């Protein structure tokens, strides 16, 4: 039986939802606000909410000191490249797990996910050695490979859950109609799974965009993305909270806008498999 939605209950749940939403959003809001303050006002006690001298100086300084566009471009290449390759690898993998499962499929899925439980720093040394050995340090190619591999389990899992919802009869019909494996995946499975694939791409793009551990440790100048751009303002020589905030705002702005316009897809992606 459905619970009655009384006006009072509705007001309370709405208020709680707003409170949680604001709480989560507050750090981002504070970062954006701080980016418009002077350095002195940024560390003022008590904190200033509105009554300060709004300034664009931080943005000007950040722009002058470092080449934002270069970092942005690297972020786009790294996040986009790793997601794209990940999807191409994951579609056949998820196809086989969803439609021709073996006795070990469940174990393999769990084992894949278990790699996400390992702290990244645990493999920093071996990965760094491999990078040195193969001259991959500070290359986009090397980093795309690492980002793709660390997110692959999630991509496969998400696609697997979406594919499971597609009736196998339809794929079998394609086989009877003369489609080979490539045509079956290209013309039937992929178009039917487009919503799922889109939200998978989106979520992984965001994950790769925000990935900081590997991007900071394996890059220097050439292939550094926006995470490195932010980190360069957190220097031990002094406190530059306002400039750090300006840099952060510039770094998160593209992904924030992307996320805003694709909310619906994202929500479906994040709750994957929860509701059929």
């Amino acid at each position: 039986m459905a619970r009655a939605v009384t006006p009072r209950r509705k007001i309370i749940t709405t208020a709680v939802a707003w409170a949680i939403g604001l709480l989560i959003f507050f750090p981002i809001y504070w970062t954006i606000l701080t980016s418009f303050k002077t350095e002195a006002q940024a560390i003022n006690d008590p904190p200033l909410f509105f009554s300060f001298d709004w300034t664009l100086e931080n943005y000007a300084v950040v722009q002058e000191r470092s080449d934002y566009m270069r970092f942005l471009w690297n972020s786009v290449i790294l996040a986009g490249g790793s997601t794209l390759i990940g999807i191409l690898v994951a579609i056949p993998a998820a196809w086989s797990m969803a439609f021709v499962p073996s006795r070990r499929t469940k174990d393999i899925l769990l084992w894949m996910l278990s790699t996400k439980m390992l702290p990244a720093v645990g493999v920093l040394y071996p990965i760094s050695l491999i990078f040195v050995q193969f001259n991959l340090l500070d290359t986009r190619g090397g980093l795309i490979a690492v980002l793709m591999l660390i997110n692959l389990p999630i991509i496969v899992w998400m696609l697997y859950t979406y594919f499971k919802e597609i009736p196998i009869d339809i794929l079998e019909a394609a086989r009877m109609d003369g489609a080979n494996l490539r045509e079956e995946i290209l013309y039937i499975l992929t178009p039917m799974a487009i919503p799922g694939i889109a939200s998978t791409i989106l979520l992984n793009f965001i994950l790769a965009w925000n990935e900081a551990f590997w991007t900071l440790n394996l890059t220097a100048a050439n292939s550094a993305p926006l995470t490195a751009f932010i980190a360069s303002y957190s220097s031990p020589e002094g406190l530059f909270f306002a400039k750090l905030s300006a840099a952060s705002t510039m770094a998160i702005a593209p992904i924030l806008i992307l996320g805003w316009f694709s909310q619906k897809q994202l929500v479906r992606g994040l709750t994957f498999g929860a509701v059929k």
Partner: protein
Amino acid sequence: MGHIILENVKKRFGEVTVIPPLDLEINDGEFVVFVGPSGCGKSTLLRLIAGLEDVTGGRIIIDGKDATSVPPARRGLAMVFQSYALYPHMSVRKNIAFPLRMARLERAEIDRRVKAAAEVLNLTDYLDRRPGQLSGGQRQRVAIGRAIVREPAAFLFDEPLSNLDAALRVGMRLEISELHKRLETTMIYVTHDQVEAMTMADKIVVLRAGNIEQVGSPLELYRNPRNLFVAGFIGSPKMNLINGSIAAQHGAETIGIRPEHIFASSEGGEWHGKVSVSEHLGSDTFFHVTCDGIPEPVTVRVGGEVDLHYGDDIWLTPDPNHLHRFDTQGLRVA
């Protein structure tokens, strides 16, 4: 062409044997129906012929060529699924054209064939709709259209009518039969409904637990069921099966008599009983009669309207020419 031979075909899923070694020949142009209760392996057998499942042993020969390890796409067979299995993201036109596109036919030829199939199946006005916008019967027609455009060696139907309502089912049954007459292509049709089997088949294959119980024309099966299972499965309403002393009088372990082969009278006859339930269909009346010395109620058909009611006395006389006798193994005694 559409000549299919199954030689010693076996199928196991893990430890479970679904099809024990089985031989079957399907001739070109035949309408063959696989019938049996659910779980009898009839769908698995069809999927083995389609190539959607691999055989565990044996050979499948299609038109003289060993097709045992040929993938489904290259066996030249078309299949109509119970769930229709239309491509939801494509229009009806594209659904029907899909097998032709896969066969790399020319654009003009594809258009011509799709148009022809749509006309035959009354789908011309729906070509630009998506499957989601069609009724069950229309979807079924699209599925059939997708099968016929390829001009396959044989059609495989997997319980194609079970998702339709009763009235539509009778109509589609006729349409499929007409299609068979016109195309003269081999059709293999799986169903659990013996009425579909009786009305459509040239040859019925009765299956139980993966074993072929009997193969024959509908009337052969009706007249000479090889064993108790076929006797009870073919015919509607079911044949009356009677054990005990009455069967012994006829020199058998079990005797079978169809409701339409019993003569009923309110004056006298071989077996006495009382009417329990009567079903009036207008053209026929079926009485369920509780007879002295027979544990199960006996069903009897009486032509037209007969004025007998609950609890009335009735005498039944089986037609000796249509009495089936079975031995202790359940096999027919000649």
